[in-house]
């Protein structure tokens, strides 16, 4: 859509020029700063501190730095905004040319019940004490939305003064007042009553209404300002000092007065003095045609203008002068006040200029006899006259004439500093590059580095009560006592050897302004104050002290207010406060030595952009702490929506928190203190409006931020947002559990696998060894046995026969032993049943002649350990062998019972041969040893036979 640029802008370019004006701290924001349009219809500051600006093309939200624009695309019914109101639920009601919108957070919507209002422009919205809404329209009268959501219209026919209504207010009695084009209508107890010119109003066309805290109703008309008391009106017009009678807007400055916006500038009506102070474009107002005014929470006044955007007025403590106001040149190098009280301004290029009490400048330059227009310094002589130091030497202005010196009298050029000795009455002149000169009224004497002066460039001269002369040079500070120079430099504690200015404070102590900060000289020692201490800039052009004792330091960034007392007391204090162009200075870059305190206590600051006058008595402190808001959060460049239970993925590289502390007095001087709770980091300070975290480890965090305004006021509330950085899936508990589980499983598996495999390997190896032994050795032994058998069938001698038998028997015995080994380690033969089978087999082969009784009990399928099986079998075999070899028994009872880990093996015979023989035998020792191996008890009983009993408890 094409924007129509208002033609008023063109009309307002023809500014009226006044020689007697000064620039005041007005700060203007318009289209070039981001405002959607320069015609402003209404202003509102919401409870969050944001300034809302309704323009003829779009709605704006301003935080001091940035404008957020809203248009019909965002849901507005019309781009022409005519009224703003914030309700008790902090919702913003927006009256447009085409109905009413509600803005809640970032969503814009409409109420269906307000549909009828779309027929005309809504000029004012009011919420009454019952939370019912009243809408003033331009031609449709008043609409009333009651608590039951019923909409009622009141028009002229109902008693309203006119259908075109500009404003609605409600007084303390609950009476509604309407500003119409045909008088003031009040609605009391359901009855309308209208006041017109007949009742004393100067004009029936009313623009704005305002109620003061004490209940006074003020009415802005096209013919002046009126106050109603009872049925009577008290009115003020241009004749009373009002800037213009056509009042557009009234804002109440509590306890102080009224701010009035008119069609020809602004007026402040002071309640106490009943006087008007007037402001126009000449003082810096954006435009003289003011539509609306807004007194903000910091005590500043905003003007919404027709064609000039918005202007913020910070107060008249600063007054500035430039070429436009009559200065001959904007580079102001020195200021002085003469005997008459007029101020003299030295400029570099424009000569000198006298500023009289009316605010008019009278300039004197080379055409008037001044030796050069490039003036470095000037000083008024108590006895009358003015000493002027220029690039081409000294001029003395006396009796409206300049006295100059020829080269033979004064062969030195650049006079940078002037000082009249209180002791001798002689003048001291500091030069650029040529040392310091004394002038006794007749001749000049020079002192240079050759006389031990620290440096030949002398920027400032001061004198102390002991008669010492102090010189600020580019080589440090030189002190002249009598004829002797004592020099102080960095080695002695100066912050920098480039010394630009000297101040003797109220207590008589010297202060030095240098290129590296300031220094106080007291008791022979320098106390330095630099950027490390919080000084906003290192280059200090001048230092001045006001009557309250506050120091003022000129820098490249503006003028610093330095409260030395606060600086000395606590760390929490706010000793430095910077004033810049934003706060009303004419320029930020000051000029070296260009400061002056006049006899009235007013401070004067010279800069490269003009002159600024500061009245310390009008200085106001900003006690309104900034409202702090977290505006957005972005992760890896993508903005994420702020919501409770915010969760951020683990790959949160570059998490950026953007926040704003709203302070319109000095938006760029808001400082922040922030911390991320649970990050292990404490409070940090920054002047940036965002904080970046590169990579947060998983966990719960809370980001908190506070803001401090330029006067050191911290916001009482913290803005905070809690969020959770999610663990990457490989750090989630379930995954860890899973991995742990898998790990344990794998370890267990590997362990088990290798254990089993090892066991199997051992087993296999054992079987293989045994089998190999059995196969090879067994075969060989079998051969021998068979050979011996075979040989026995031959006819051989008896002795040989016996040997052969023995060979055979022995071989078979070995094979049999091997067989036992192979059997015992074969995993397939590991049940109790296998053991009993084997035992029976053995008995069958050895004791075939005897009567054998078996008593087997327990689970025959139960598995036995290899060692247990082997040892039990071998014990058994030993016992059977004993019987076979040594017993005359004819009956054997064999018992084997198993019960879990426990068992009992008993081999009992009924033999009668002596037991001693058996007890001491090798066989019994073997049995003992084997029983020990399997942790079993073995007993040998010889009661009616012999019993071997092996047992182990379960």
């Amino acid at each position, binding site marked *: 859509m094409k924007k129509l640029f208002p033609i008023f802008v063109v009309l307002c370019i023809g500014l009226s020029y006044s020689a007697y004006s000064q620039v005041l701290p007005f700060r203007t924001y318009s289209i070039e700063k981001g405002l959607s349009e320069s015609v402003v219809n209404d202003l509102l500051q919401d409870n969050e501190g944001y300034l809302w600006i309704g323009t003829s093309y779009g709605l704006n939200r301003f935080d001091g730095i940035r404008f957020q624009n809203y248009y019909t695309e965002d849901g507005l019914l019309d781009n022409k905004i005519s009224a703003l109101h914030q309700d008790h639920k902090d919702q913003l009601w927006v009256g447009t040319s085409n109905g009413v919108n509600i803005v809640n957070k970032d969503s814009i919507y409409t109420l269906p019940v307000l549909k009828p209002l779309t027929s005309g422009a809504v000029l004012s919205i009011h919420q009454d004490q019952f939370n019912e809404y009243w809408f003033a329209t331009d031609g449709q009268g008043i609409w009333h939305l009651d608590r039951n959501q019923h909409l009622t219209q009141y028009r002229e026919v109902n008693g309203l003064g006119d259908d075109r209504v500009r404003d609605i207010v409600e007084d303390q009695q609950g009476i509604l007042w309407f500003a119409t084009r045909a008088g003031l209508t009040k609605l009391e107890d359901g009855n309308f009553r209208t006041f017109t010119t007949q009742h004393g109003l100067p004009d029936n066309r009313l623009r704005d209404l305002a109620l003061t805290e004490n209940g006074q109703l003020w009415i802005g008309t096209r013919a002046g300002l009126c106050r109603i008391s009872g049925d009577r009106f008290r009115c003020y017009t241009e004749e009373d000092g009002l800037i213009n009678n056509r009042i557009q807007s009234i804002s109440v400055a509590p306890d102080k007065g009224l701010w009035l916006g008119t069609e020809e500038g602004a007026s402040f009506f002071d309640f106490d003095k009943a006087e008007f102070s007037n402001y126009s474009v000449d003082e810096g107002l954006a435009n003289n045609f003011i539509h609306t005014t807004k007194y903000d929470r910091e005590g500043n006044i905003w003007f919404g203008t027709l064609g000039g955007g918005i202007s913020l007025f910070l107060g008249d403590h600063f007054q500035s002068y430039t070429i436009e106001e009559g200065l001959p040149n904007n580079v102001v190098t020195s200021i002085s006040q003469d005997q008459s009280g007029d101020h003299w301004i030295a400029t570099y290029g424009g000569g000198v200029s006298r500023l009289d009490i009316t605010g008019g400048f009278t300039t004197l330059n080379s055409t008037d006899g001044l030796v050069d227009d490039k003036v470095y310094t000037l000083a008024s002589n108590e006895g009358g006259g003015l000493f002027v130091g220029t690039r081409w030497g000294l001029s003395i202005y006396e009796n409206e004439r300049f006295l100059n010196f020829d080269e033979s009298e004064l062969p030195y050029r650049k006079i940078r500093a002037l000082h009249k000795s209180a002791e001798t009455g002689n003048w001291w002149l500091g030069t650029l590059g040529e040392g310091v000169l004394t002038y006794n009224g007749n001749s000049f004497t020079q002192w240079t580095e050759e006389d031990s002066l620290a440096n030949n460039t002398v920027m400032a001269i001061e004198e102390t009560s002991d008669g010492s002369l102090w010189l600020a040079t580019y080589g440090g500070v030189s002190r002249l006592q009598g004829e002797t120079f004592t020099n102080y430099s960095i080695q002695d504690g100066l912050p920098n050897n480039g010394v630009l200015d000297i101040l003797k404070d109220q207590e008589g102590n010297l202060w030095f302004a240098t290129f590296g900060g300031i220094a106080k000289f007291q008791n022979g020692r320098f106390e330095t104050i630099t950027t490390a201490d919080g000084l906003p800039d290192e280059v200090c052009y001048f230092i001045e002290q006001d009557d309250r004792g506050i120091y003022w330091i000129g820098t490249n960034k503006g003028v610093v207010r330095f409260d030395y007392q606060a600086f000395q007391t606590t760390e929490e204090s706010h000793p430095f406060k910077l004033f810049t162009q934003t706060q009303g200075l004419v320029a930020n870059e000051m000029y070296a030595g260009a400061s002056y305190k006049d006899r009235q206590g007013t401070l004067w600051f010279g800069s490269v952009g003009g002159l600024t006058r500061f009245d310390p008595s009008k200085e106001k402190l900003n006690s309104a702490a900034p409202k702090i808001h977290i505006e957005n959060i972005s992760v890896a460049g993508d903005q994420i929506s702020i919501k409770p239970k915010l969760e951020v993925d683990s790959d949160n590289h570059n998490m950026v928190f953007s926040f704003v502390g709203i302070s319109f007095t000095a938006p760029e001087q808001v400082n922040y203190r922030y911390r991320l709770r649970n990050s292990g980091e404490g409070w940090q300070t920054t002047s940036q409006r965002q904080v970046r975290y590169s990579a947060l480890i998983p966990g719960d965090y809370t980001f908190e931020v506070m803001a401090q305004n330029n006067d050191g006021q911290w916001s009482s509330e913290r803005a905070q947002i809690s969020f959770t950085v999610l663990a990457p899936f490989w750090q989630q508990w379930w995954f860890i559990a899973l991995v742990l589980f898998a790990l344990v499983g794998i370890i267990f598996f590997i362990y088990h696998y290798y254990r089993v495999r090892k066991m199997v390997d051992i087993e296999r190896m054992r079987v293989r060894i045994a089998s190999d032994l059995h196969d090879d050795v067994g075969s060989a032994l*079998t051969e021998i046995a068979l050979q011996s058998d075979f040989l026995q069938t031959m006819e051989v001698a008896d002795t040989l026969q016996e040997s052969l038998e023995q060979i055979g028997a022995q071989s078979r015995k070995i094979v049999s032993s091997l067989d036992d080994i192979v059997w015992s380690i074969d995993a397939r033969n590991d049940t109790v049943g296998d053991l009993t089978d084997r035992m029976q*087999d053995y008995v069958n082969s050895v004791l075939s002649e005897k009567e054998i009784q078996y008593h087997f009990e327990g689970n025959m399928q139960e598995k036995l350990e290899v060692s247990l099986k082997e040892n039990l079998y071998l014990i058994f075999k030993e016992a059977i062998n004993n019987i076979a070899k040594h017993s005359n028994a004819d009956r054997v009872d064999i018992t084997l019972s198993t019960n879990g880990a426990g068992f009992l093996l008993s081999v009992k015979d009924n033999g009668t041969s002596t037991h001693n023989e058996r007890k001491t035998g090798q066989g019994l020792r073997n049995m003992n040893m084997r029983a020990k191996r399997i942790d079993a008890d073995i007993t040998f009983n010889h009661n009616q036979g012999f019993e071997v009993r092996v047992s182990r408890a379960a």
Partner: protein
Amino acid sequence: MASVAGIVEDNKKIRDLIQRYLDMQDDLSCPVAVDSVEEMIDYLEEHPAPDVILMDIQLPGMSGIKGIGLIKEKYPDIEIIMLTVYHDSHKIFKALRAGASGYLLKHTSLPEIKESILKLLDGGAPMSPQIARKVITHFQDDSAKKNAESDLTPREHDIVNGLVDGLSYKMIADRYDISIDTVRAHIRNIYKKLHVNSKAEVIAKSLKGEI
């Protein structure tokens, strides 16, 4: 008339010893002693079958157990005695199921070998308690799928249980008031049923497509 024995044994010395010994006996002859099942099968195709074959288990080429199956298949009348170094009941049992009628350990003395052969031919078949136990579990395990004919009779059960209890043939015969020969006959029968059972198993398996 002397019975004829054959030997399959890969250890040449043992084979020769046994062959020479058996040949020396009046009531036995041993015309064939080879070192593999394959050779024995070749021999059987061209010569009259022996009454009994002593068969080693571990042999080059075809294993003895497989050989038993093959030979029994073609020549069911040949009695086969396992000749094994091991007293390995599992292998022995496998052999029995394949059709062997008994087993001998190699280190058994030559006269005992001769005795065992004659005993077997006389109708007796040795069964140790270990084998008997396996017989029982075998028939229990297979009870579900096998048919009535191949099941053990109650008397056969008695005899097998007797063997498991460690009773000698004589004691079994006494216990049930039957002759030792009857016991032997029963045991032979049991062997046959084992064999049949294993065949049935093979058939069942082949029907299921497992072979």
